[in-house]
């Protein structure tokens, strides 16, 4: 019976694809990729609960709804106060130059719309090359409906003076699916910081299925910070796929506050020697929120370092999932890989599923993983209160410090205050 319902859900997406194609059509240079992706989606369908990496996250309720494909809309944003950035605005997934501020970009750096650059060699070479649409259902769906998105290019040796801030504005008045797409290409020796955040203007249910691909060239350095502040009607699947060349450095910082259901897929292929990969995450949930962080680090070459650190605070009936996998291939000797996940449960009904995993085929490596889930330290609370600090404030101080550990690692220091504000807000 369940099988039957699943099929119907997928058929609806396939039918939507047909309609979408006849109405809009995918621009010529992207249509091949789009067609391959929908064909693949038709074969693999949505992940079942049997699928180990989806074991604790049930997507049936969110994919079972009837959604409209996001249409064009008008909106404006003030961005984040006190933050000096180059702002690229996407409304319902479409690049909106008139709402963006990109005139101060340094030479060698460009932020363009995907639809306008689809024929460019950079897009043709890299788009769809790192985000695996053959195995990931949601990436396949995003790729099938590919129409627009952001293409950020940092040419060889160029450095961004200030971060590029991609702001997605989603304005919907009925249940909508929006599928942003971003390609970031940092050529050899380039360096850039990218911030991505979303502003939700609608009040009906929304499914956001975002795919971001990042190419980090030889000796290049990219920091990518994703700030996700959700409301109970927003569900999000994010797929971040990173490809690193030798001696490159990549850092991911994922902050997820609330939302209905969130699934953050992060995969990194370290395909060169002496790569450094840092994966930091903070997730806070309450109510019936569900936040799932699924990471995969693939060490294909020797002499690399990866360090992963995720922390979560869960209240009420919320659920957290951490599925972290590190793969060290046979010839990838002298790898240092570390994984840590710590979570605090604030209620008896909140749940955390934590599964760090190492899969090692090389014999000369240093790898470790650890996960702890517990309640707020009672002795610590007593200690703070014994110094006159009221109970509520003492709890807040401890939880803010717990979360602050991740915030302080975030590379854009001027964002820290805003991140602390979100933590405060979730604890109120």
């Amino acid at each position: 019976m369940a099988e039957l319902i699943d099929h119907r859900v997928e058929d609806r997406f396939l039918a939507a694809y047909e309609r979408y194609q006849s109405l809009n059509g995918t621009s010529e240079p992207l249509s091949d990729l789009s067609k391959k992706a929908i064909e693949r989606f038709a074969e693999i369908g949505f992940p079942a609960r049997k699928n180990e990496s989806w074991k604790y996250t049930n997507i049936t309720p969110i994919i079972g709804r009837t959604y409209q494909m996001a249409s064009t809309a008008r909106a404006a944003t003030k961005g984040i106060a006190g933050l000096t950035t180059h702002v690229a605005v996407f409304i319902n997934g479409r690049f909106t130059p008139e709402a963006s501020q990109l005139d101060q970009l340094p030479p060698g750096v460009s932020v363009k719309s995907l639809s306008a650059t689809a024929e460019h060699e950079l897009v043709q070479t890299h788009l769809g090359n790192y985000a695996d649409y053959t195995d990931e259902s949601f990436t396949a769906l995003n790729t099938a409906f590919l129409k627009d998105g952001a293409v950020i290019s940092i040419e060889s040796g160029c450095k961004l003076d200030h971060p590029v801030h991609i702001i997605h504005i989603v304005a919907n008045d009925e249940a909508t699916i929006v599928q942003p797409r971003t390609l970031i290409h940092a050529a050899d020796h380039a360096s850039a910081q990218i911030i991505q955040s979303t502003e939700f203007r609608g009040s009906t249910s929304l499914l956001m299925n975002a795919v971001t691909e990042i190419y980090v060239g030889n000796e290049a350095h990219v920091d990518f910070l994703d700030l996700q502040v959700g409301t109970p009607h927003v569900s999000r699947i994010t797929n971040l796929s990173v490809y690193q060349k030798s001696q490159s450095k990549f850092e991911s910082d994922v902050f997820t506050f609330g939302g209905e259901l969130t699934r953050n897929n992060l995969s990194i292929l370290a395909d060169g020697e002496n790569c450094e990969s840092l994966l930091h995450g903070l997730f806070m949930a309450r109510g019936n929120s569900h936040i799932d962080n699924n990471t995969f680090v693939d060490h294909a070459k020797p002499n690399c370092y990866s360090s992963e650190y995720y922390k979560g605070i869960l209240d009420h009936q919320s659920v957290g999932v951490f599925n972290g996998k590190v793969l060290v291939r046979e010839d990838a000797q002298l790898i240092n890989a570390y994984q840590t996940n710590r979570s605090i449960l604030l209620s008896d009904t909140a749940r955390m599923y934590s599964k760090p995993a190492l899969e090692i085929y090389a014999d000369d490596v240093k790898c470790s993983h650890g996960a702890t889930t517990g309640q707020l330290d009672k002795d610590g609370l007593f200690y703070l209160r014994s110094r006159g600090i009221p109970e509520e404030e003492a709890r807040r101080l401890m939880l803010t410090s717990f979360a602050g550990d991740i915030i302080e690692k975030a590379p854009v220091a001027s964002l820290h205050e805003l991140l602390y504000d979100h933590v405060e807000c979730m604890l109120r």
Partner: protein
Amino acid sequence: MKSILEIRGLKASVEDMPILRGIDLTVNAGEVHAIMGPNGSGKSTLASVLAGNEDYEVDGGTVEYLGKDLLEMDVDERAREGVFLAFQYPIELPGVSTMNFLKQAVNSVREHRGQKPLGAAELLRLAKEKAALIELDTRLKQRSVNQGFSGGEKKRNEIFQLAMLEPTLAILDETDSGLDIDALRSVANGVNLLRTQERGFLIITHYQRLLNYIVPDFVHVIAGGRIVRSGDKELALELEKRGYDWVQEELAA
């Protein structure tokens, strides 16, 4: 003389096991009382009950603090009213910055006293002044509360907090345990500088050693959950010479 603390017939238990079986004790302003006794006699339980540790159940008796019912107050309320406990085992708080912690603690207490909260600069000045008092390495302030501190540093940090919060009643729970002679001397020196006409001290210790440096006005011996003997500093010296068996034997006789 102004009374700070009046304990009458205090009984307390932990997990249904009676520990305190009727303690009577009065501490007046300006006095230093030493509480001594063998292991398991109830010394630290007394300190915990007075600080408001909820792991302990009060089964009877009264505790008046400055004329108010202390046992009715929450832990943090007691602290704001001026009761301070220097922990035997100070808690490590990873990630909680020492300055942030001090700011919240000091300003919670100040606010309760109707004083203006201190700004960052004023707090820093005060912390510097008080740290010097007990020879606390000021670099420790850069770290998380007690995290990675040595045993001696933790104990100094307790006395440093005492100095910052300026309590009316300071309870020191085996502050001397685990201290080498130099640390002991500087901690004791700090405590002596904090002795005032308005403040009362309850110093809980197993050994007489600390009392060479902090000379008490009164010494009480707890055994079996009761105060079995009280005297002046000479009592501590006698205990050191004759051991705790002496009071227990005498009591049994």
